[in-house]
């Protein structure tokens, strides 16, 4: 009787051990020769023409090169592309499909804050590592957070840079801000306001627009009446265009106007605004370098080999940077790859340099926002150029 019971106990233990051992050797999305990554990109919707294809092509360029060189520890990267549409409606089913149907090892890309916030809990509950390359909302990487990392500059930090830059304008004492108070804009706005508060500054005008505001005359008038020295804006590209058209009427575009990373193409902004001189004093934050820098020239051909229509833009640069960080983490994690080992590897990255961005990326167990450095740019003779040297990172 006792022998039978012991045998039964042993067989149960054996099965459990086999399961545990099996689980250890067969991590989801990892085989002997492949690592499957879910590439979460907006291919339709508002960002479908620019953000998604740019990021996806940047990543594919890096990973194709890695695969052609033999892969990582004998494994090649394979990717499944899921269209998130930049919306919760498409993002939630897309992430579920990637995790449960495609059984991916990890997720990567992620261009839109609202979309990622909608499925953030799903990612955390499943413990899937996620490298976010474009979205900025602070809450995406907020602790406790087992496994979401970011290579883009988070909104709160961007706000700090905007405030610092505004304060650096010679003789600037009166600051105005105009912002969207949705999930996207609030984080940037809070970053600006907290930093200004640290400096003991209260903006003399604090105006609001939504993405739908049709006419910015009241905003422009109120700011004009307050007579500021500098204007900080945290608005989507569309309301930014509407605001600048109205602001120009009242002479406000003669003042320094501080924009943000979502307005990363000043040449396009100038075309959209359609008023000569209206963005002559506009400065935008970016964490990616000038795409026309001579040393980046080879990347144009590499991208074109993957997708001829994709240029070297901030979006494809986000993709190249993010994909390179993923490669670095996979290399550090070694041949015995598990989600836990990858997360530990990501958290060990310190001072990672990418030729696409200004600052190094450094992560830790407590801080999954690797990027803390930005640069300001403005238009000069029709080209977007850096202003000053490297703008200091967040302390």
């Amino acid at each position: 009787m006792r022998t039978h019971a012991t045998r039964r106990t042993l067989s149960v233990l054996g099965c459990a051990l086999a399961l545990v051992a099996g689980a250890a050797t067969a991590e989801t999305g990892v085989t002997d020769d492949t690592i499957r990554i879910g590439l979460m990109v907006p291919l339709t919707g508002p960002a479908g023409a620019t953000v998604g294809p740019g990021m996806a092509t940047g990543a594919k360029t890096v990973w194709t090169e890695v695969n052609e060189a033999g892969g990582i520890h004998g494994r090649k990267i394979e990717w499944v592309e899921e269209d998130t549409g930049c919306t919760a409606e498409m993002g939630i089913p897309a992430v579920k499909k990637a995790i449960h149907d495609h059984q991916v090892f990890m997720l990567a890309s992620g261009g839109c804050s609202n979309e990622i916030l909608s499925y953030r809990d799903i990612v955390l509950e499943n413990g899937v590592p996620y490298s976010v390359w474009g979205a900025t909302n602070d809450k995406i990487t907020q602790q406790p957070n087992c496994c979401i990392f970011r290579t883009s500059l988070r909104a709160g930090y961007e706000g700090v840079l905007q405030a610092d830059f505004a304060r650096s304008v010679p003789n600037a004492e009166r600051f105005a801000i105009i912002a969207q108070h949705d999930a996207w804009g609030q984080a940037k706005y809070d970053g600006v306001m907290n930093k200004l508060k640290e400096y003991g500054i209260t903006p003399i005008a604090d105006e609001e627009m939504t993405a739908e505001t049709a006419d910015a005359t009241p905003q422009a008038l109120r700011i004009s009446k307050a007579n500021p020295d500098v204007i900080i804006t945290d608005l989507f590209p569309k309301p930014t265009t509407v605001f600048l058209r109205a602001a120009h009427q009242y002479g406000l575009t003669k003042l320094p106007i501080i924009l943000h990373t979502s307005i990363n193409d000043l040449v396009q902004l100038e075309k959209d605004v359609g008023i000569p001189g209206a963005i002559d004093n506009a400065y935008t934050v970016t964490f990616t370098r000038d795409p026309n820098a001579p040393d980046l020239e080879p990347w144009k051909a590499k991208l074109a080999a993957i997708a001829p229509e994709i240029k070297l833009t901030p979006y494809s640069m986000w993709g190249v940077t993010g994909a390179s960080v993923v490669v670095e983490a996979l290399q550090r994690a070694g041949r015995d790859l598990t989600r836990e080992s990858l997360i530990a590897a990501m958290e060990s990255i310190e001072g990672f340099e990418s030729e696409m961005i200004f600052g190094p990326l450094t992560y830790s167990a407590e801080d999954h926002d690797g990027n803390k450095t930005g640069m300001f740019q403005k238009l000069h003779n029709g080209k977007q150029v850096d202003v000053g040297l490297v703008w200091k990172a967040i302390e």
Partner: protein
Amino acid sequence: MFFDLLASGIALGSIYGLVALGMVVVYKGARAVNFAHGEIFATAAFVGYLLTANGIGYWGALTLAVLVTTILGILIERGAYRPLANASDLALIIATIAVSFMIKGVVRTSYGTRGDFVAYPPIFSFDPLIIQGVFIQRQHLVLGGVAVVCMVLFGLFFALTRHGKMMQAVSEDKEAAALVGINVRLVFLWIWALGSLLGGLAGVLMAPIILVYPDMGLSILVKSFAAAVLGGFDSLAGAVIGGLLMGIFEQMLSGYAGTMFQDIAGFAVIILVLLVRPSGLFGSKEQTRV
């Protein structure tokens, strides 16, 4: 600041009035609230943009875009209104909402992957006119001027022409109108075509100011609906005056109370009017529920 806000309020209000006028024409004539009217406005803006981008001048693009939306109105009448003409009000409302989503879907299919908006080229230089210290945008002047001319022409059309009177007769009592030999079906077709023409006209006039994006119809629909409720949903003059008041109210509220109130002005007007004077300023008493 007051006169600057007044000037921009009148310009914006003219557009709200023009869109509201299109809604009221359909409501008066066909007793249907057209919730697809905002999408007609958006369609015109996109068609106008497409034509302008392909080298057609602003006024040519405006004419063609208005023609397209007029045809769209006819198609809505034939495809959605006529089969449901004797159905309940709720069925008609659902039908126009469905049409609105269908049009938006088509526009998104064409433009949804081109960024979140396209910038319509300005009609005139952006240098404002400065009259007695008041800044007036040339584009606002044109917009207000065209809107006023249209309103006057429509007023005259309904008051003086045979077709206008036939439309009024059908709106009053379609059975009686049919008895005296009026082709009621044809009149309904004109009503939807005219309503859509007005929506299209407003769309191309407004596009250079507000930029063009697939969801632009909803916010204009809310504000124009508020204008029609304010003026009285069965009053042509009420729609125009309601639109102007709505535009001025919106600008003054955001200018003096705070810009955070700008986009809630429309909803505030709807609720206030329904509570205080459900028939609107110029609406007839029986039109208490719209």
